[in-house]
C-alpha cells in the first residue's frame, strides 16, 4: 500500500512542477496522471508495471472518490441564496445537458462503430438501470 501511495505522490509532485513551470493551463494532478500513464505504457522495458501496491491504492481511491469532494461541495452553503433564486434554470440546464450528452455520445459510438455483438436481450437488464 505505501509504495503505491508513494508512487502516486511522486507523480503528483512531478505533475505539479510541470504545471507550475511549463504547462500552466492544465491542472498539476492531470499532468501527473498523464506522466504516470506514459510511464506505465512506455516504461515496461524499465520495469514499469501496475504493482500490487499501486493497484490497491488506486482501487481504494476509486471506491471512496466521493468522500474526497465532500469538503469542497459543502461550500454549497455559501451559494444557497443564489442557487435558490435560479433553482429552476439550473435544474433544467443540468437535466437537459446530461440527457443530451448521453444521447450524443451513444449515438456517435453507435454510428461510428456499429456493434450488436454484446447486445443485452430485450427485457433483460438494459444498461445502467437498477439491479433486478
Amino acid at each position, binding site marked *: 500500500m505505501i509504495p503505491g501511495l508513494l508512487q502516486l*505522490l511522486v*507523480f*503528483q509532485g512531478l*505533475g505539479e512542477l510541470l504545471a507550475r513551470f511549463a504547462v500552466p493551463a492544465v*491542472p498539476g*494532478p*492531470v499532468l501527473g*496522471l*498523464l506522466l504516470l500513464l506514459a510511464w*506505465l505504457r512506455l516504461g515496461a522495458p524499465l520495469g514499469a508495471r*501496475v504493482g500490487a501496491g*499501486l493497484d490497491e491504492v*488506486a482501487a481504494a*481511491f476509486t471506491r*471512496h*472518490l*466521493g*468522500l*474526497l*469532494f*465532500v*469538503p*469542497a461541495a*459543502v*461550500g454549497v*452553503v*455559501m*451559494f444557497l441564496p*443564489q442557487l435558490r*433564486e*435560479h433553482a429552476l*434554470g*439550473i435544474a*433544467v*440546464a*443540468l437535466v437537459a*445537458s*446530461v440527457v*443530451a*450528452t*448521453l*444521447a450524443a*455520445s*451513444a*449515438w*456517435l*459510438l*453507435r454510428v*461510428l*462503430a456499429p*456493434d*450488436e*455483438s454484446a*447486445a*443485452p436481450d430485450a427485457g433483460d437488464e438494459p*444498461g*445502467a*438501470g*437498477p*439491479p433486478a
Partner: protein
Amino acid sequence: MTPALPPIEEIWVYLAGSPLLALTLTLAAWHLGTRLYERSGRNPLVNPVAIAVAIVAGAIVAIGMPYATYFEGAQFVHFLLGTATVSLAVPIHRGLDALRGRVLPLLAALVGGGAVSIAVAIGMARLLGVDAPLVQGLWAKSVTAPIAMGVAERIGASPTLTAVYAVVTGVLGAALGRYVLDAVGCRAWWQRGAAIGIAAHGIGTSRAFNVHPDAGAWASLAMGLHGVLGAVLIPLAFGR
C-alpha cells in the same frame, strides 16, 4: 475530589478549532451515506456524496461553524483529490489495452459528447436567465469532479459550484442513463458504458460496474479520458 472540568464553552472552543471535529464529521457523514446507499440496494438516487454533503452542511450551519473553519480541518481529505486524480492512470492504462480498433469512435464520442454537454448546459442556463457566476460552474461539470474542480480554478469559475453540479450530473446520469441509451438504440455494453462514463463520470461509472463488467471498464476509461481531454480543451474553449 476530582479536578473540576473546564467550562463547556472552553471544551467547545478547543474542539471547533482543531481539525479533529471537521474530519470526524466528514468521515461520519460519508460512512452514513454509503451505509444508506448500500441499504437502498445501490439506488442511484440515494447518492452517498449528496447525503454526506447535506449532513455536513446541515451540521456546520446548526452549530454556527463558518465554512472556512470547517474547510481548514477537512482540507486533509480535500488534498487527496489530486492524488486520486493521478490514480486514474491505472484504469485508463487497463482500458487502453481493451481499446483495439475503437480509438476513433471513442475520441469522437468524447469530444462530441463533451461539447454537447457544455453547449446545452450553458445555452439553457443563459436562456433561462441564470446569473453569470452560476453559469460558469457548468463548464466542467461533466468531467470527473476532482479534475473538474482543477479546471474550474484555472478558468476562474467556482470549484465548489462545479463540484456540486458534477455530483448532481452524476446522480441524474446514473438514474436516467438506461432510458436515454434505450431511446437512441445503443445496445452494446461497451458503448453503453462509454456513454455513461462521458456523461456521468464517477457516479455513472460505479453504476455501470454494478450492471456489467464491460460497461464498467469502458465507463472508467471514458471517464478518465474525458477528464484528461476536458482539462486540456475546456480552458481553450472557455468564454467563446
